[in-house]
């Protein structure tokens, strides 16, 4: 038997996964809109609940928008592996010659592009409604960009652990939200600092470091969790 077979390498495999997931999202654009609507809704609920005074909006803006973004990401994470688990393509990923963490990272990247990135792009609209100034919005976008990357990575682990389980939605949130609190705390905190005139702070470095750390570790945890959940 010919042993000189060439098998597509790590990046080729990862790219194939990203391409397929983006294609799937493209064919069902409604799915991408769901988290965005959720984000907009939660952002709207707060002023309705606590009163629309200008001071209150400015004060609570960073926190509210960050919480809304966090919840919107939770909503979008549920289905990350669900379809693959049900139609058997998860099997195929698990027996692929490429390292599973690379393929898991591919799925995570595709998830961020279809969920995190749109969120960051939509945020300025809502931020303006919260009377944020341009420089604060800049910090908000930067922290959200880094934060949503970390959330996609961390959330993928949770999604992999809970795929196919009864009440996976609630369980996923219960697992990931406590772990995501540092991201929320530092992200919202950094924006608050910017809002009170302190400009770009150390929080951004924390978020960047977290994102890099998550990038190097989370795919391995996700891969382990996928193997376990697919049994």
């Amino acid at each position, binding site marked *: 038997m010919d042993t000189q077979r060439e098998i597509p390498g790590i990046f080729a495999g990862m790219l194939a996964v990203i391409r397929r997931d983006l294609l799937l999202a493209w064919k069902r654009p409604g799915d991408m809109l769901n988290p965005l609507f959720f984000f907009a809704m939660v952002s709207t609920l707060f002023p309705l609940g606590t009163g629309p005074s200008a001071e209150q909006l400015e004060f609570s803006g960073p926190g509210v928008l960050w919480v809304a973004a966090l919840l919107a990401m939770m909503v979008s994470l549920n289905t990350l592996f669900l379809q693959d688990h049900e139609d058997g393509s998860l099997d195929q990923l698990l027996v692929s010659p490429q390292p599973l963490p690379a393929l898991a990272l591919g799925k995570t990247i595709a998830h961020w592009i279809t969920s995190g990135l749109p969120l960051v792009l939509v945020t300025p609209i809502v931020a303006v409604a919260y009377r944020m100034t341009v420089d604060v919005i800049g910090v908000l976008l930067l922290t959200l960009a880094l934060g949503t990357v970390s959330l996609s990575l961390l959330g993928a682990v949770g999604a992999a652990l809970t795929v196919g389980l*009864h009440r996976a939605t609630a369980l996923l949130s219960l697992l990931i939200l406590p772990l995501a609190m540092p991201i929320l705390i530092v992200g919202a905190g950094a924006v608050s600092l910017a809002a009170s005139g302190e400009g770009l702070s150390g929080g951004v470095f924390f978020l960047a470091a977290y994102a890099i750390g998550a990038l190097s570790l989370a795919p391995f945890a996700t891969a382990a969790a996928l193997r376990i959940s697919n049994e």
Partner: protein
Amino acid sequence: MWKFLHQLASPPHFYRLSIKFIPWLMLPAVVLIGYGFYGGLILAPPDYQQGDAFRIIYIHVPSAYLSMMAYMVMAIAGGIGLIWRMKLQHAVAAAVAPIGAAFTFLALATGSIWGRPMWGTWWEWGDPRMMSELILLFLYFGYMALRAAIDDTAKADKASAVLALVGAVNVPIIHFSVEWWNSLHQGQTVMKGAMDPEMLYPLLATIVGFTFLFGAMLLRRIRTEVLFRERRTRWVKEMILSEEGDK
């Protein structure tokens, strides 16, 4: 020694040996906690700032410390079970979770009682230690919920081990970020700095004493867990039969 450890990893050997350890853990526990409570609750003078309210630290501090240690035990046991495929380690992880959660809850409750006279409220969001404990409680709930959601024991073991490891990596990060947040919003902390020896020694005694107690409780729970997991094996059946025969 190596053989002893090796034997300890096998469920039937562990079960037989562990029953002997429990009294050796309970005795120091009772002595140390007894001394600690006597020294702290009765002998030590009231604090010049907090009055008698500080006495609750004799329960609060051990609980908080054990809540963290229990999580580490859970994560390490799960990790060993996952990587080296040792069944007993998974039983340890499963057994320690409720104990850790209970200590976390105790730490939160005693911390709240302690803080009330100073904060003027039952809960202070700005306190970094309490926030860390609260998040730790959620981590325990998540762990136990994941275990409960998976029917197959082996699968639940592995999945929760991954979760515990991810959590363990995050615990220091959570701690750090909450402290940072607190410094940002200028909240109040509960802990004091230096301490009188009259207050300190009983405190150390309760910390060590509670740790022994934790050990004893953990051994008991692991034994129950092992018995349940191995309920269909021959050694369990033989043991039950022989015990019934003795009676």
